[in-house]
């Protein structure tokens, strides 16, 4: 079965991203397909590679990147939500005149249409948020 997952909360302030990750991992382990993970609202904070949690804590950002690399996942960050919160890839940083980008490996910045398309192309859309 094909899933699209929406994550609407940032790491470390809410369990939503952890639950979404565990759900995605379990779905992949069962042989299902994750068509897309869409990070929306504060969920875009899952996509900054500058995240540096203590060494004995889970690294929520790296964990998503690793899962994406292993299973070729499409991790999409909402562009408008990302701009508001200072999440940028090289193109966005240049376009907005910023001196750096911070997007983590495996994530890409795109629009809300990607969430709608994910919902259309998938059998299930599962939302994790507050």
């Amino acid at each position, binding site marked *: 079965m094909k899933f699209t997952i929406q994550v609407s909360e940032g790491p470390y302030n809410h369990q939503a991203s952890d639950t979404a990750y565990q*759900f995605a991992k*379990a779905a992949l382990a069962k042989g299902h397909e994750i068509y897309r993970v869409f990070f929306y609202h504060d969920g875009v904070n899952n996509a900054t590679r500058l995240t540096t949690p203590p060494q004995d804590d889970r690294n929520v950002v790296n964990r998503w990147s690793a899962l994406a690399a292993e299973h070729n996942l499409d991790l999409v960050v909402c562009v408008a939500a990302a701009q508001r919160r200072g999440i940028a890839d090289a193109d966005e940083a240049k376009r907005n005149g910023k001196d750096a980008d911070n997007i983590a490996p495996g994530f890409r910045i795109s629009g809300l249409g990607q969430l709608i398309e994910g919902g259309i192309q998938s059998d299930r859309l599962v939302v994790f948020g507050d």
Partner: protein
Amino acid sequence: MLHTVNKSPFEKNSLSSCLAHAKEGSAILLIEDGVYGALKGSKMAAEVQDAMGKFTLYALGPDLKARGIADKIIDGVKVIDYAGFVDLACENDKVQSWL
């Protein structure tokens, strides 16, 4: 339809709303702080027990364990893991999150 509730019923009323609006025969899964809705002997327990004739109630085991209430839940609430969550999402045609 599968309904997921992630709020404690002692903080927000999303579990009551869900129980009031869900169609008979629906599956309701308590996750995150929502698992407190499965707590035996609480102020909420009677409402949840009444609803069990209409719905199938599930609670996410890892979230029960993380909150130390795995052995204090209402009889008849089915405890599942993340794989079980995935199975429920497949068996039901839609997943509605009561955020």
